[in-house]
């Protein structure tokens, strides 16, 4: 673990001194149903005119790590090529009975739960390959969950640059200030991935993060 952190850190330093990599791996991490795929979709629609993946109200819609390569984003006079990496939401518990509440049959719910557990393991394994990470949080929920703190703590320990997105600001209950107060050492951008609100601020913050 320590060796990998040093290796990745050295790679980033090397790249920043001797030239840019062709692609920058940008991960979308966070708890389930925070809007990671919705944000990835918004970005892909903005820059390549297509969706990234399917979204749903049922938690754990994304159960495998997926990526979109060669996504070129420009901001002012700068241009960066990203590899967008969407990951399954990380949680400490998965109860198939929760899926049954959304109208699934028991077998289907159990299958979804199994895939979700595997997806979380996959998410965690991919962390070390990220050059930067966007942590997507649901701004209508309490940000002080241990999973949020664990994800951010883990990224920080690996010295991976972090941008926090407070998503769902189109909803009345959204409280961006609470997220800013919870993680004062990081930039927080309040957006709505669904409506595209403040997406320009997101791109600005993203370029500030990876400059």
């Amino acid at each position, binding site marked *: 673990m320590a060796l990998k952190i040093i290796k990745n850190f050295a790679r980033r330093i090397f790249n920043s001194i001797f030239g840019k990599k062709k692609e920058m791996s940008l991960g979308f991490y966070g708890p389930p149903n925070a809007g990671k795929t919705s944000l990835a979709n918004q970005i892909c629609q903005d820059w390549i005119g297509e969706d990234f993946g399917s979204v749903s109200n049922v938690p754990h819609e994304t159960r495998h790590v997926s990526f979109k390569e060669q996504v070129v984003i420009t901001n002012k006079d700068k241009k960066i090529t990203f590899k967008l990496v969407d990951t399954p939401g990380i949680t400490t*518990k*998965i*109860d198939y009975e929760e899926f049954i509440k959304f109208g699934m049959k028991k077998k289907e719910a159990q299958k979804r739960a199994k895939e979700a*557990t595997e997806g979380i393991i996959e998410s965690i394994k991919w962390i070390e390959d990220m050059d930067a990470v966007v942590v997507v949080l649901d701004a209508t929920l309490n940000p002080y969950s*241990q999973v949020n703190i*664990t994800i951010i*703590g*883990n990224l920080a320990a690996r010295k991976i640059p972090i941008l926090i997105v407070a998503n769902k600001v189109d909803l009345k209950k959204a409280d961006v200030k609470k997220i800013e107060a919870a993680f004062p050492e990081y930039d927080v951008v309040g957006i709505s991935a669904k409506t595209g609100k403040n997406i320009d601020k997101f791109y600005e913050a993203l370029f500030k993060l990876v400059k």
Partner: protein
Amino acid sequence: MVKKIKGLTLEFMPYSEIRDLDSGGRIKKILDVVLRGKIIVLQGRLRPDEETRLIEDTMAMIGHVKNFRGIELAVIGSSNGDSKFFQKLGQGVAKMLVGDTASMTIIGPASIVKEIKRNPKKIELMLKG
């Protein structure tokens, strides 16, 4: 040290019990206790990589261990804000067990916490008792 509060079993784990173990050993020790249906009050906290490993190992067990649906995890210390259920539980119980000096990690089976959440009065009564 095991402290029973009217049916709810809390196991206090001093940091010295895991200090000399490697990450795998620490996680195994913690999950062994959680799988017995107990809530652990661990003095101190795990390293960030150990916390994620705990999540990974927990995920690997769901579906393989009967009725195991995961864990609730909360670290109560200087850097955390309010953490709902566990904070209330932790502050009360932790002060009782170890005083109020160190941060601590509380880990319990999700199914037990779900049951308590259904009836929060139950835990308040337990803590008062």
